[in-house]
């Protein structure tokens, strides 16, 4: 299969993939994927269902441990994060991830946000309150939920729940943020809010987002990676991919011929 990869410099990238192969049992989900994900930029992973983009994304913070076998090298700030000696928990503190379904814990809003901090060893009440306040502001939830942080997180609307989850991920100040179709279950207004949040987060976060929403990819991302049948087919600046893709296949996908 033809591929066209216009990769940004590895030195400017937080995550560098080198010949990554991923297998579920005997079945290969990702073949020979190499890519650089530039620092403090948003990279969108697009492609039809089953093209392996989610699998690839999950490998970046080792969520595939015990589920899939990942070969090759995934460098995070120069370190191969696939190294078996890597402490996945420390890794996940630095590389956060948000999933498709809003999944707040069945607890109060406060507990949802305080738990990760407690678990990370932060027991300073004042500091916790400050951080919670800060992240709620970042995701624009504060004026919506008011001051009552003791209400159940499950009572929030779907969009609010997802932004709460985003806030929860941001608490630990990750350097890299992985998002797996974070807005696919949300209404357009909530989606827009999340997108706004992401654009402002770019200042101190490297963001990689899997999305089926091509408009979303074109709206917010700086780079776009097109996955097809387990391979990274095209990687380029978003504008280039959407306006003038190199491969015919990419062209067909972004113009909506298949997907």
């Amino acid at each position, binding site marked *: 299969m033809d591929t066209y990869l216009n990769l940004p410099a590895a030195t400017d990238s937080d995550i560098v993939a080198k010949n990554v192969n991923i297998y579920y049992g005997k079945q290969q989900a990702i073949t020979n994927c190499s890519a650089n994900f530039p620092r403090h930029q948003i990279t969108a992973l697009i492609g039809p269902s089953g093209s392996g983009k989610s699998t690839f994304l999950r490998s970046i913070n080792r969520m595939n441990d015990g589920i899939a076998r990942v070969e090759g090298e995934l460098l995070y*700030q120069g370190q191969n994060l696939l190294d078996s000696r890597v*402490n996945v928990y*420390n890794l996940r503190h630095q590389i956060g991830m948000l999933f498709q379904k809003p999944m707040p814990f069945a607890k109060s809003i406060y507990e949802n946000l305080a738990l990760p901090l407690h678990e990370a060893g932060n027991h300073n009440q004042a500091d916790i309150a400050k951080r919670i306040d800060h992240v709620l502001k970042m995701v624009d939830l504060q004026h919506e939920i008011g001051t009552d942080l003791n209400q159940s997180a499950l009572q929030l609307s779907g969009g609010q729940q997802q932004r709460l989850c985003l806030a929860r991920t941001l608490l630990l100040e990750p350097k890299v943020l992985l998002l797996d179709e974070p807005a696919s279950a949300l209404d357009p207004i909530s989606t827009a809010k999340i997108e706004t949040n992401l654009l402002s987060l770019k200042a101190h976060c490297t963001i990689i987002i899997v999305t089926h929403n091509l408009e979303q990819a074109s709206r917010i991302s700086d780079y776009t990676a097109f996955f097809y049948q387990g391979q990274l087919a095209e990687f380029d600046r978003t504008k280039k991919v959407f306006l003038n893709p190199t491969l015919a296949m990419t062209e067909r996908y972004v113009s909506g011929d298949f997907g």
Partner: protein
Amino acid sequence: MNKQLFNSSKEIRQDKLGRLLVYSALTVVLVLACAMLYFIFSKGIATFTQDHINFWDFLTRSNWNTDNLQKPDLGAWALMVTSAETTLLAVLVTTPLALVIAIYIVVMSPKIGGRIVQPLTELLLGIPSVVYGFVGLTVLIPVLRRWAGGTGFGVLAAALVLALMILPTITSLAVEALNGVPQSYQTFAYSLGCTKWQVIVHVLLKISAPNLLVAVIFGVARAFGEALAVQMVIGNTVQLPLGLFTPAATLTSKLTTDMGNTIDGTLASNALWSLALLLLVMSLIFNLLAKLVLRRSQSRESISR
């Protein structure tokens, strides 16, 4: 360089502790299960290895005579047939009722169903089997006697007592099975103009059929293993149950009746453990059956998808 990535942390220690705890708990359960299986197996097999009873005779003959040590006449066939017959009858009586109740709880009136019907059926689970036997003896047997003559003791009495005992088991599993059908399927069927009855028959029952079958199999397993209640009403006679009112004996009732009177290590005792082994093999079969049903339905689903 990001040295921190390689540092150990309390999370790693917590995980080690957690894995240790849960796997040791699982080990305890498995060791226990294996110990019991081994125990029953080794004792049950002694009848054939130590006392040289012909295995085939044991399965096919219908007498139970351990007094004559020179030529013991031992056979579990009648016991097995009776166990199967009582269980089958009980399940035949209970399954339709349990299904109706489950449908009522899930579809007709979840509110009354959840608040009254289900708790009431589950209450039956907590009543000890002695009590079922007691009521069977004092209420059911006289009724059967008046109705059909004879003594009243026999297969039918046992089956009816069992039917009541397994009602909660099948009902609650059936409720679970029906609840397992996504609500959206129902909504979709209603939106096509289906009536409630059509939704029940063509959507709910059809989709949950394998799980309902599993519910019945578990009911069968419970009925098969029940001892005290059956023993009180079945009449305890080792013979082939030719009619519904023939006194008979099941594997478990024989086991319960005789166990205290045998000497550990003698043929009479070993033969009873062989019955326990038979019971074990039967529950193994029920189990495999349930698994098979589920697996087949799953593979069919995945093909149709």
